[in-house]
């Protein structure tokens, strides 16, 4: 009931599922001035999708997802600025592999624990990554950030332009790929196993499911997707700062996902969209006080809409059906 998307549900695409892509393309043609914001929203959607996969479906609580996001961002940045590898596809691949490996290594440790211990360990992993990046100044640029990132045209054809047209479409393609992969996963038996682990891991052990292996697989995969999101951030900004590894992106991401709705796939679309647009709008109207607006929005959602914004729309639709 709370999680309408899953193995038991009808896995055919509904017409509403095409809606985000239609909107995204419409934005490209109708709002050319907002493409840089659009690219940022898309990057965060991919990042939120990766978190939803482990938090919403597998029930792994994390406050350190930025470790993979940041690693992906730095791998792309270092490849370009220090090693002269400017091909965006290659950068993307390396970022995904590096973040996936880090996911595998840290997941092997983190996933042996539960609850608060797990939360603290994920936080610790991110903090260690941050400090490494801060200290390794010759490689990462330290607190000054890593500049001098150049990205070659995609497939040698599409140059990253100042208006962010290429960046926007490039982000859109990758988000579409990520969405398609994750959607396939959660409707598969593997996805069903994850939901089972989230709901009752003792019982999953009892039926003989390899719980730890399943969790490690999904954690690695999620880390790799977060790494791709990080690489996107670097490619669209051509700059990497220490803040990508900080606590803020992890925390903000969690806020976005909760705002949209956890464990329902499209919550990861709605959350970043609402959060970043509200942030952009409020920051322009009230540069000094915009955090207040964001805080107010969160309080309202937490008090009145436990399922996030999509939870509200579910409730509204249910009520309308009852009346009809």
């Amino acid at each position, binding site marked *: 009931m709370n999680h309408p998307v899953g193995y038991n549900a009808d896995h055919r695409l509904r017409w509403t599922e095409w809606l985000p892509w239609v909107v995204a393309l419409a934005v490209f043609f109708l709002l050319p*001035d907002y493409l*840089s914001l659009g690219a940022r929203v898309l990057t965060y959607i991919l990042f939120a999708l990766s978190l939803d996969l482990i938090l919403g479906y597998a029930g792994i609580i994390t406050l350190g997802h930025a470790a993979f996001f940041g690693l992906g961002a730095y791998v792309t940045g270092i490849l370009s600025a220090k090693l002269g590898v400017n091909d965006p596809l290659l950068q993307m691949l390396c970022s995904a592999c590096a973040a996936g490996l880090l996911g595998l290594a840290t997941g092997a440790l983190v996933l042996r624990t539960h609850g608060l211990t797990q939360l603290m360990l994920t936080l610790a992993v991110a903090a260690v990554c941050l400090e490494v990046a801060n200290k390794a*100044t010759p490689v990462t640029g330290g607190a000054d950030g890593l500049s001098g990132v150049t990205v070659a045209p995609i497939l040698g054809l599409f140059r990253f332009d100042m208006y962010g047209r290429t960046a926007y479409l490039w982000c859109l393609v990758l988000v579409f790929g990520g969405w398609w992969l994750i959607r396939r996963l959660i409707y598969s038996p593997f996805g069903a196993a994850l939901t089972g682990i989230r709901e009752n891991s003792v019982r999953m052990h009892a039926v003989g499911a390899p719980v730890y292996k399943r969790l490690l697989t999904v954690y690695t995969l999620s880390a790799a997707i977060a790494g791709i999101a990080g690489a996107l951030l670097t490619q669209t900004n*051509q700059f*990497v*700062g220490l803040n990508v590894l900080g606590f803020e992106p992890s925390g903000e991401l969690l806020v976005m996902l909760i705002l949209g709705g956890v464990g329902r796939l499209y919550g990861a679309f709605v959350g970043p969209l609402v959060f970043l647009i509200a942030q952009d709008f409020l920051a322009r109207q009230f540069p000094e006080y915009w955090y207040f607006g964001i805080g107010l929005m969160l309080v309202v959602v937490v008090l009145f809409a436990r399922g996030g914004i999509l939870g509200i729309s579910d409730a509204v639709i249910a009520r309308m059906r009852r009346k009809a």
Partner: protein
Amino acid sequence: MKTRMSLCVGLAAAAMACAFPAAAQTVKIGLISTYSGPGAAQGDQIDKGAKLYMKLHADKLPPGVKVELITRDDTGANGDVAKRIAQELIVRDKVQILTGVVWTPNMAAIAPLTAEAKIPFVSANASGAKVVGMSPYMARVSFTLCQSAYPLGQWAAKKYKKAYSAVSDFAPGHEAEGCFVRGFKEGGGEVVGTVRIPLANPDFVPFMQRIKDAKPDVLFAFNPAGKQATAMMKAYGDLGMDKANIKYLGTGDITTDEELQGMGDAALGVITMHHYSAAADRPANKAFVAAYKKEYGADLNPGFMVVGAWDAMDAIYGAIRAQGGKIDPDKTMEILKQYKSTTSPRGPMSIDPETRDVINPEYLREVRKVGGKLANVELETITTAIKDPLKEFEKKK
């Protein structure tokens, strides 16, 4: 006949429509600063400096030319946010000149954008040594750390033999340490130890105890301007290092005019080198401080970031005047390169045409009580025009 007539009228109207906006030029300036998060206090100074200048100099613009300031929040040292809002200011708001920026990484992130879009940028604060060179459309009127740390090292070597350096562990700290140590050693002094204190570490006592045990004559300190400097100063006082005859030295960042009152008597006698003090008695500064207090309250002192923003606006207004309100990016950069000011609150300053970096005066100051309040009293003018020493060192190589 009729159609030709209406065509003529139409053409004339079109011509007038084209000519009319030229009479009321609006120059759009984008100000990127930090309005939220832990760095909001610094960003606020830049905001105040720029707005105060605009308010007092509205009549210094050519007739018919207006300036519109568009402010945006970069939320702190977040290069990616700074880059995005700079992009939006250029693409969406169509600004012609950019200024502001507290943090060096943010300026570095904006650099490629200013080069591609040909938008002149004037740094009001960000002071990393190399960052101005990253784009031909960037200039700086703030300062570099080496400009104060290097002459301070030279000066200290004349009076003291043994020094210990303690800086915050991030790029500007490393720069300050390198320049002080170089100046001190060149002057014949001995550096008995250096330590880099983590930026996120608020407990200074263990570090200070170690320094006290090493018994240097002077302690050179650098922290990012703000609360950390106060905490380190308190540790210095609590451990009785002043009584152990260890003199406390630093760049002006450790005794900023807006933080000074919170430091207490531990700060008394601290010697710093900097390009600006609110307590300076130059007439230009007195008028500036009076205007600031009138606008924002008698208890507030303008810090060096206010001056940075003030002078950035002065340089920009100069460029607007010289071009009669029609901003051409390349001409603007040529004008900025020639920028000289005798009316800056900090004293005579200019921009080095070669590096587009600032040439500053430097003053030796001591914290004293003036009328019951702590103040950075200027003792001596060390130099009236110092270029960034780091770039000069590199030229010699």
